[in-house]
């Protein structure tokens, strides 16, 4: 489904080259839920941004659904993201001026769905995330957890094959974290491929597989046995 080969990212900040990702190889199967862990500055955000085309790679290859995508232009990536990639960010990034409903319908409209279909899909999603009554609220009126649920609804609006989540629970308290993780679990059970960046071991425990980064390189890549996922919030000892 998603494959990265010898992926390198070098930032040339103020003249000094910084190697954020150094020759990384990664293969993710369809339907997999992968958590990418690592300390601050290990390159995990950079990696997920490159995988979604938000940040261009310096060298290396990215393949999505059997097609090479790292050579796409910025616009090419944008078109690809509309249909195939959904993003969830740590800061939620809801468009502040738009209502919850508009935020969720926006990607569907962008992908060419009719306004009626977009509305129906939005109603379904918000219903599922128990946000129906907040449809006409503005993002500023919502709590952090609610905002992240809306962001998740927005990312899922086009039923993307790949959901990329960058620290989705980083700004949330434990109750909201639990809610969001429960939703991610449901999405995953629906067959969606999810790649999630986190530095929280409890959050990572929800995934099928945990990839650990350190200084831009993979230092560990291991699967978590399925049965161990009894519930989110449980402390899991990761070797």
């Amino acid at each position, binding site marked *: 489904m998603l494959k990265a080969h010898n992926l390198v990212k070098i930032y040339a900040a103020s003249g000094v080259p910084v190697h954020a990702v150094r020759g990384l190889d990664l293969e993710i199967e369809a339907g997999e839920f992968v958590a990418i862990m690592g300390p601050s500055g290990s390159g995990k955000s950079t990696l997920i941004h490159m995988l979604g085309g938000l940040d261009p790679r310096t060298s290396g290859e990215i393949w999505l659904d059997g097609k090479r995508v790292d050579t796409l232009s910025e616009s090419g990536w944008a078109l*690809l993201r509309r249909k195939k990639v959904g993003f969830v960010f740590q*800061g939620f990034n809801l468009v502040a001026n738009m209502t919850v409903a508009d935020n969720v319908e926006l990607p569907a409209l962008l992908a060419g769905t009719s306004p009626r279909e977009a509305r129906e899909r939005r109603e379904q999603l918000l219903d599922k995330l128990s946000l129906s009554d907040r449809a006409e609220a503005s993002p500023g009126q919502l709590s952090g957890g609610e905002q992240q649920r809306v962001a998740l609804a927005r990312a899922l609006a086009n039923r993307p094959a790949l959901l990329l989540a960058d620290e989705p629970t980083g700004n949330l308290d434990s109750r909201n974290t639990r809610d969001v993780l429960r939703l991610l679990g449901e999405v995953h059970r629906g067959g969606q491929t999810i790649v999630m960046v986190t530095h929280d071991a409890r959050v990572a425990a929800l995934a099928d597989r945990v990839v650990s980064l350190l200084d831009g390189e993979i230092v560990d890549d291991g699967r978590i046995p399925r049965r161990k996922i009894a519930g989110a919030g449980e402390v899991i000892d990761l070797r």
Partner: protein
Amino acid sequence: MSTARAATRWISADLRARKGQAALTVLAVAGILAALLTGATLLEEGTNPWRSLFGQTNGAHIWIHTTERPDVWRLRELDGVATSAGPYRSAPVTLVQDGKRPQAALRGLPAQLPEVARPQVQEGRWLSSEQPDGAVVERSFARASGLRLGAPLTLNTVGGSRQVLYVRGIADSAEQGFYPEWTPGLIWVLPSTLDRIEPKHELSEWVTGLRLADADATQVVSQRVLVELRQVERVYTWREVRAAMELDNRLLGTLLALFGVVGLVAAALALANAAGGRVLGQLRDLATLKSLGFTRGQVALLLVAEHGALGLLGIGIGLAAGWVLPVVLLGAGAAAPLPVLAIGAGAALVVLAAVGLPAWRGGRTPPIPAAPAAPPRGHLSRLARLALLVRLPPALVLGTRDAFTRRVPAFLTAFGLAVPMMMITIGLGVWATLDGFLKNPEQVGQSAALIVKTGKLTQGQAEELIAREPGVERSYPGSTVNALAPGEARSVQVRAIGGSREPYPYPVAEGRGYSQPGEGVAGQGLLDLLGVKIGDRVRLTVGGSPLIVRIVGRVVEPDLDGQVLSVGLDTLEAKDSVPPGYHALVLKPGADPGEVRLRLLSASQEGLDVQRVVNPAERLGVLRPVIAALIAVLALIGLANLLTAIGLGLRDHASDLAVLKAMGLTPRQVTATLVTATGLLVVAGVLTGTAVGAATVTGLIDLQGHTSGVGAGIGRPPAAATLVVTVLAAVSAALAVALIPARRAARAHVTTARLTHGVPSGRS
């Protein structure tokens, strides 16, 4: 299509979030466009009433006034002459009307309307032999004198008899300019009626109009006419008539066009500022849009559409207003569609160019919404550190630093305020110049407030009455004659007034006043017309005899486009100057012209004919509301720029607020910091704009004076007190506007959580 739907949602949501600013932008652009279009309409020839009047009346190109009846057949045989009108006998009369005594020419026309120069009856009907006491009055004269259909028309002839006619019709004519710019007023009567009212033929003149096959041949033909005819009193052509009709419209049009063009630049700048500020404030939202799948081009297009739409809406409203305003307010004809389209298209291009750059920058936003969009970090300059060392209030120092954190927006804000302020100063200068005309008429060549003609009295009686009047400082005898200029197919006015030894107090702008016979001073219009300069001699012909005058100076001359030569009465031959045609009365300081006039009238038992001199500022009164409206629009533009700057400043410094509070600044000090940051740019912009405006206004008005013939030397900068008040008003209004959001921001409870939501602190 799909993108359009998504984009529309985003645009409408964003516009809803900033209704006030959007409305301000639309209003400012609309106001500027209306001014621009009105200016162009007034400048455009199509709106000059002369063209349609000339067409409707099948007008004559050349008008000749002679003392004797000319042989019209000889004139018609001249090369280039197609047909002729007249000759009509014309007698000077004075209309007795509500205490005013306007001069009029009583012209004998047949009951059958002529083919050429046919007056166009607008109300009532044309002359008929069944109504021998009927008269038809030219429309502008009727309006100025308050004459309606059926009103009695009491006329005093030169001989002193009083006759009453009745207004049977009101008609338009292209024979002469509008009253009161063009005097005398025009009244048509049947030739038999004219003979009854003024039987003496020596007191009248003959007026002949020539219609040419080709209007461009006017110059050549009128020179031939001068050669053919003797006893020519006066010749004028369609060009003078056209110029007279467009006089005020041109000045107003120039003013509006100047304000419109500069205002458009200012509005475009305001729009670019607003769009740029908005884009900076929305970098995160734009990045989010890109992460959702908007391409770079689509984001840029979306921004152009949003901000451009505001500008285009303003342009639309402005064009509509500019189309209607000249018709409603000034009675000018509607603008031709071509200039409207050209102005609209040009303004649309300017608007799109103005929003294009910020939109392009917005499109280039990296698609990572978490990317920091914080302002470039400045550091305390040496000056600022010194300021802190000498214990200036910290709010002042920090505000000063903040003001210039973003150099380009800071410059654009100051510049965006300076341009409207410059134009406001220029507007105030025009206002001050008009005030100057009114307060010091002697500076525009109008030392005399009253013109007295002897009327029924003898010269001696009149002079005695004037001498007894306590309000009169001095009386200058004068005569006005028409002179033919060599090589010019038209007459110019020679005003002989005062003696060469005791010259009339003209405001001499260049050279000196006349001091001996044979010397004269001229208005700029005359110098330009004859192509002469100070020191040159001109040779003119007055009533057949030559008049040679050395021009020794240029005076400010508001009459007849400045095409007036002024000499001492003793420069004219005795036949033209004795007795003098009138007395120009210079009043004592403080004497009221109206009272002096009434006293003279009652002392002479209404025998004297006393007229007040019309100040050019009274004619230009329409400029004042126009200036006020323009200042309002410019203030809107300034306000739009200010709001952008405040919004950007608050956004940039939101993260600093918590830090400042943590450092121990009180909310009041935080407010002061924010207000100082905006206020400094305001002060810089306002002061620069005012200085530039004050420095250029005199030159601009003089330039306009030069081209209109009045001559340089009329421009007045606004008074220092006015400028100080304006600057203070602008700055304090700006500070008041800045204070409200600053206070709100300073009192808001800023938490770190909100900080991370509102302004990302960096990438994780």
